[in-house]
């Protein structure tokens, strides 16, 4: 059975147009398996990209993320559920374990469903805060869809997101003038950690309120968040590159909205790019995008062919090269640095002695080699060649190669006759030796003058 499944999986993977670097077993969790029909286009896209989707409900008996300590699924997709807790199979600890085991999670939320406590606590561990009571609705009285929400203003119409800085790669903008529609959005706020990155932040005119409790007015003290502080779609990437994405609006990927036509106030009617956005979002979350791979690291003495020696000598010239590939949808490609970004090499013992920008040395079919040459410091010890390249939306590159740097051996110093300062002393030695030999020669060859009196006595 196993092998049969394996063959099927293999065939399936072969025909699929794309596949994640982390496997294709996807578990979708929803209240009722029948609800999946509402997401037919979205899930169809995933299936077409090669994912093997298993549908289950949180309360299901046979549900288990781990079997004998091994991950059962590569990716998790939470669609909004009505249940308050997700039961003993999906506690926050298990979800954290899942992330620690390099599993990816996509959490889709909706203001019509309160998020479960399990999800809330799990996100809280990642420093993502949901509104009080895990319920909220984002409204914006300036960027709403006039067709469907002319009264309630709860369908946001936003431009496709741009990267926060120009040194960050852009994965989530289908095209320059693409428009996204986000109905019934739950906002969240992010902590200051560098593992978190917002993709889509609310416009400065948006705010979040609780439609059940705060239906007439929002007290300033009770305001959850507003404006740019309110994130609608955010991603989290753990140190082991496992990815967690929070999507504030599950409706935007439902069939009814994924290709809907919307219109802003005083705007024309446009078709939303939700489908493309969802593709990019799932592609990134399930590690089809933005995955970096270090193929090899090579360091050697400049002009010497021995690669990766374990020990160097102080003050020698060393060449370092690291080959990096980037995975994009279906293949490994050479990694190209964004503008204004650099991969840096640290040569460190306790603290860096060198911190150098690496420049592209060569590009092969699927990899770019970044490299540099430098002179080792005049300090012996145990050093690390370290490339610590952590950027938003790119998987973590943290390569540490330990080498020893030894002192100069006793026979590697310049000989004394090469050092001009030593010449007086060398000539001193020469003079002493010559003088001694000359003295000996004179001593040996000179006959002592016999003292008259003494000579007689000895005879």
């Amino acid at each position, binding site marked *: 059975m196993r092998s049969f499944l394996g063959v099927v999986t293999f065939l399936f993977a072969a025909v699929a147009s794309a596949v994640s670097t982390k496997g294709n077993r996807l578990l979708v969790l929803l209240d009722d398996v029948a609800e999946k029909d509402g997401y037919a286009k979205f899930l169809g896209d995933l299936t077409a990209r090669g994912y093997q989707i298993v549908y289950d409900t949180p309360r299901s008996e046979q549900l288990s993320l781990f079997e004998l300590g091994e991950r059962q699924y590569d990716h998790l997709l939470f669609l909004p559920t009505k249940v308050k807790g997700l039961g003993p199979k999906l506690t*926050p*600890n298990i979800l*954290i374990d899942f*992330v*620690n085991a390099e599993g990816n999670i996509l959490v889709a939320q909706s203001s019509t469903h309160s998020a479960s406590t399990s999800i809330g*606590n799990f996100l*809280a*561990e*990642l*420093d993502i*805060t949901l509104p009080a009571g895990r319920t909220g609705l984002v409204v914006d009285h300036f960027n709403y869809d006039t067709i469907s929400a002319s009264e309630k203003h709860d369908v946001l119409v936003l431009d496709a997101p741009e990267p*926060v*800085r120009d040194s960050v790669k852009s994965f989530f903008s289908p095209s320059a003038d693409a428009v996204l529609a986000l109905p019934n959005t739950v906002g969240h*706020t*992010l*902590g*200051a*950690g*560098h*593992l978190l*990155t*917002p993709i889509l*932040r609310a416009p400065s005119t948006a705010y979040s309120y609780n439609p059940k409790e705060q239906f007439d007015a929002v007290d300033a003290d009770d305001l959850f968040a507003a404006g740019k*502080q309110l994130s609608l779609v955010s991603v*989290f990437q*753990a*140190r*082991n590159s*496992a990815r967690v994405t929070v999507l504030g609006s599950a409706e935007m990927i439902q069939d009814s909205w994924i290709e809907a036509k919307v219109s802003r106030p005083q705007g024309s009617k446009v078709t939303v790019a939700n489908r493309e956005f969802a593709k990019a979002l799932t592609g990134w979350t399930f590690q089809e995008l933005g995955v970096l791979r270090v193929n090899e690291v090579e360091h050697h003495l400049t002009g010497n062919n021995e690669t990766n020696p374990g*020990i160097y000598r102080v003050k020698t010239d060393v060449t370092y090269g690291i080959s990096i590939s980037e995975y994009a949808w279906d293949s490994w490609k050479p990694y190209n640095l964004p503008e204004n970004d650099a991969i840096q090499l640290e040569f460190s*013992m*306790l603290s860096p002695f060198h911190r150098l920008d690496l420049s592209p040395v060569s590009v092969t079919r699927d990899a770019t080699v970044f490299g540099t040459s430098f002179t080792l410091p005049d300090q*012996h*010890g*145990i*050093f690390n060649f370290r490339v610590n390249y952590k950027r938003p939306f790119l998987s973590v590159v943290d390569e540490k190669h*330990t080498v*020893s*740097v*030894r*002192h100069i*051996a*006793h*026979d590697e110093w310049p000989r004394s006759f090469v050092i001009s300062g030593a010449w007086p002393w060398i000539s001193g030695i020469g003079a002493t030796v010559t003088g001694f030999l000359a003295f000996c020669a004179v001593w040996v060859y000179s006959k002592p003058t016999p003292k008259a009196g003494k000579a007689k006595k000895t005879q």
Partner: protein
Amino acid sequence: MAVATQGASSGINGQNTRTLLRVSILFLIAAAAVASRLFSVIRFESIIHEFDPWFNFRATKYLVANGFYKFWDWFDDRTWHPLGRVTGGTLYPGLMVTSGVIYHALRALTVPVDIRNICVLLAPAFSGLTAYAAYLLTNEMTTSSSAGLLAAAFMGITPGYISRSVAGSYDNEAIAIFLLVFTFYLWIKALKLGSMLWGALCALFYGYMVASWGGYAFITCILPLHAFVLIGMGRFSNRLYVSYTTWYALGTLASMQIPFVGFLPVKTSEHMPALGIFGFVQLVGFLQYVRSSMSAKQFKTFVITVIVGAVGIGLAGLVGLTSLGYIAPWSGRFYSLWDTGYAKIHIPIIASVSEHQPTAWPAFFFDLNMLIWLFPAGVYLCFQDLRDEHVFVVVYALFGSYFAGVMVRLMLTLTPIVCVAAAMAASQILDTYLSAKKPNVEEVADAGSTDAKPVKTSGLRVASKPAVGIFTFVSKALVVGGMAVYLLLFVSHCTWVTSNAYSSPSVVLASRMPDGSQHIIDDYREAYQWLRQNTKEDAKIMSWWDYGYQIGGMADRPTLVDNNTWNNTHIATVGKAMSSSEEVSYPIMRQHEVDYVLVVFGGLLGYSGDDINKFLWMVRIAEGIWPEEVKERNFFTSRGEYRVDAEATDTMKNSLMYKMSYYNYHSLFPAGQTVDRVRGSRLPDQGPVLNTIEEAYTTENWIIRIYKVKDLDNVGRDLFSAASFDRGQKKKSSKKKGPRVLRVD
């Protein structure tokens, strides 16, 4: 030697018989010396002892495996992580090279021998040679044939020497004491003969000594002192001039070939006496020459001018160069020789070593037994017949006694002279009372009336008194019998001390079961073996420096600090990590890439040499570098007590060392009965909680506990909240009072 003296009266064959007897006696003494050092091998196994020997053993293995030049340039990247140690240039290679030479020689003779067995048995083998060297040295002091043999026997079995040379005690002292005694013998020989050859031999062995042990400075100071005293006594001679200058010139050159010594002989104050006396000898030699060609009056003014000028220039030069930094002032270890309290205040790392403590008086009797009271008698005998070599004994005895008094380990340098002097005294007694010959009355009367040669016949005045009664059989039997009893007691004392005090490997502990059988506590090796088999080959182990050499030798894992305490700051860093709270320790451990932390805990077994008892030294050493962050006072309760129980201070309870020692300890006991058997205190039922490290291994008797340093949290939390999350505590709701914390992208 009883036989030897009888041999004197046995005709033409006497000379040969005596030689044969002497050789066989010396062989027996050497055999006894070796045999008495084998207790530990028989009782435990052929194992390297204690701490430093493990490094020497590891270095020897490196030497044997990689050859001499690799060893000479050895950069050791498995100690002092991440600084590394230029080991080849910072050790005394004599010991390892000696073992390596023996190893290769035996290999060449097709004797397949393990390098470990050579290392284990090197010290006993050299003790046999030391006995022989003591025999030679004593023979230079006295004409008595028995004194040398007695000295050899004393040297062979005296506990003061055995303490550092039992089988397995593979330390520099193992060969250094032989070299010390032999160098002194060669010096005396050179001085007596005024021979350049013997002086050169002396320099050669001095060079070997320098290559072997830091204690060579003792020779470097004693020989010039001897020369100075001789000159002061008006005994300057060409013999002294030749032997001293030969020794100094060649010996200094030889010593400078050792990388660890290098230019120290011309740069540090410890070596200045030798240099000064070298100059002084030249000066005196020059004056002697001038005197032969000058009138007495001119000479007097000349001498005064020259001496005042030379001494003045010399002193001014010394002071000037020292203040300019060309000559290093006395090192801290040297200061502590003059002021025993110095180290405790200024350099805690030196004071923390037990063998650097002042000697307790009973230790003298413990290590030397009856020799300690024979010793002054021997020195007194030297005064009787004060030749140049006797002056040496007197000088050595004075300084040796002083140094042995201020530092326990220097008992070792005192022992040889004690053996020599005591042997002279003992042989004097035995020679006097054992002679079978009865003088006839007239001779005695003659001797009594003229008093011609009382000194020649015997040193002790009592013995020279011509009372006839002393020649009776009864008095002879009484004295000789008494002496024999003392000698027998000495042998039994030495055997007892060796067996009970000096034959424990300290790596393996032995205890007695209730039925009297021996129970081996092998926690150290258990832990080191665990490290060797269960951790990555480059997993860095942090422990207090005492265990560094053992971890390197037995577990073969890199360590942060070890017994070669060359970098006080690095040791203080480890001390700070141990004595601070987890919040402070964790970044230190991360920075130094520590994978495991090893602590020694004796609370369960009552093993008092554990880390909690050493803890205050860690605190003091750390405080020396970071007085603001680590304070010794905070580890004492308000009443000034050092406690580990419920009343311990918060600083103590939060320190990493305390937490690691007592983590989970309470789970061994029923509630309310947790007890620490070393400190004899009752511990609280709630044990400490660890967040940044986790227990990896604890040995059978809980002596060694190993903890693994956690990696950074995968999802970016600090380890304290991650640990509390794992324990099932919910994150506190993030409703904070005060202004919102905004995120900036």
